[in-house]
């Protein structure tokens, strides 16, 4: 239907979350009309992002340092790890000002609909961090939806036999919502009222 460069771009854009074929088409034609300079800037920003920002080798947060700031900080509590789905959930947890432990980013939640099983998440990497005896508690702070809860149950089944306490944020989070929408106060009290799974 379109010249190959255009349809290539549409294909690539429509791989992104929340972008359907129609939106991809609209974006592609916007870029076609954009100035050479603007298009160049966008392309460079993407390349620069991929070249400089990496996953932290310990917790899989995004970082442009060898280790992310939360892993590098020597004042944080090593006995407790908060497990989140995505790196931006760390920002929500930090805003509460209540948490001083470490983090682990799973990279998603178990969801058969999306073809994501436990092996697609960074669970092996989490287990590795539990090998010493240092960690006493895992806080599961996955989203309060069914996928987040199924992931929590899976982790509890796996980790409890290792003698590590597994807790979940207290309910009271917005029903069916995402962590990123929860305000600091709600999230803070959910953290204080966490319960064992």
């Amino acid at each position, binding site marked *: 239907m379109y010249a190959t460069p255009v349809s290539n771009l549409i294909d690539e854009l429509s791989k992104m979350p*929340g972008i*359907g074929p*129609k939106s991809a088409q609209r974006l592609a034609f916007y870029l076609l009309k954009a100035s050479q300079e603007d298009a160049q800037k966008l392309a460079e920003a993407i390349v620069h992002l991929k070249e400089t920002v990496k996953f932290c080798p310990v917790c899989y947060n995004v970082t442009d340092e060898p280790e992310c700031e939360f892993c590098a900080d020597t004042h944080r509590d090593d006995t407790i790890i908060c497990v989140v789905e995505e790196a931006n959930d760390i920002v929500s947890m930090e805003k509460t000002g209540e948490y001083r432990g470490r983090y682990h980013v799973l990279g998603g939640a178990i969801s*058969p609909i999306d073809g994501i099983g436990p092996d697609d998440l960074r669970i092996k990497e989490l287990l590795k961090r539990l090998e010493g005896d240092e960690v006493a508690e895992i806080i599961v702070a996955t989203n309060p939806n*069914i996928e987040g*809860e199924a992931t929590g*149950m899976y982790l509890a089944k796996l980790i409890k036999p290792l003698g590590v306490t597994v807790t979940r944020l207290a309910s009271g989070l917005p029903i*069916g919502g995402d962590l990123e929408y929860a305000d600091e106060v709600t999230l803070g009290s959910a953290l204080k009222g966490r319960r064992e799974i």
Partner: protein
Amino acid sequence: MRLDRLELINYRNYDRTIFDFSPQLNLIIGGNAQGKTNVLEAVYFLSAGNSHRISSASQLIKQGEMSSAIRSKITKDNGPITLEVMLSPSEKKRVKVGGVEKRRFSDLLGHLHAVIFSPEDLQLVKGGPERRRSFLDDTVVQIYPPHDYWRRRYERVLRQRNILLKSRSQGVDDGSLELWDKNLVEAGTKLVVGRLTVLNKLDKFATQAHLQITNQTETLRIDYLSRVTSGGVEGPREIGGKFHKELVKRRKDELDRKITLVGPHRDDLTLTVNGADVRLYGSQGQQRTVALALKLGQFRLIEEEVKERPLLLLDDVMSELDDDRRSFLVETIRSGTQVFITATTRDSIADQHIGDCKVIRIKDGKLIDEG
């Protein structure tokens, strides 16, 4: 309650049309395929959050357009309110209540109440169980909006679980199914409890209406048919317990057949008239009467629960009903109800049924001025 103004933008066959309605009777007149049902559908959408005809909102957007909107001005007992819905194929449905954008689309629910009568109502009686389940769930949602959350949550867990079952090799239990059971049971129990609570009252109103339509000769009875409850006085604890037990019992079957076999997605309503299942044994006329009684029951139930008259949307039904049933319908709704009736010609509605009314003529998605 009443709908004062409706604005359709890129909705179905409408570009941009504003309707100003009478607080009483509105007659929407036009030839076939001109957009009569589309108007009622839009009104119903504001009350239910979905169409009475289809499940995917993207079909509601005018072909060739990127987005569509329904805007409305409503007057309720406690004052005026505006509702606005925005649809787009690539994004989630959005809603504004009183001009303020809400985070959840379900915040639309509970503001406007409407009951729609259409020729398809007969399928409530003749059609498959999913028709009756949707009818019941839609009724619950109108008087108890949180039911919508549990309904969608249940559908989501069910889909996750079924896709998981399909992807497993047959008969092997690796424990992954169990991860979804707790939420399946929790949401499923909420669904069943909501349905039973409402059915209890709906049954009373529908049976009453049915007795009246049949001159006290036929008794309608509605029962909830389920594997997870006997429908009696069981509370959430018993229902949840039974549900879970049944799941465990059928696990092997589920793994073999690769589908979720237990839960409210398999429940049904049985409709009996004078002791016989009307779906199997009823005459066409009896089935119509039951469908009408169910809808009238829904109307009265909503009225009693929300303490305001719902809007009444009558799509093509005036020509379908015989004189008795038509008079009965008109009788029950006469005073204080805002009614919307569609018909192909003005004449198809006998004058004695009408009285004061506003006639709205439409052609090809546009209003035609009375000339």
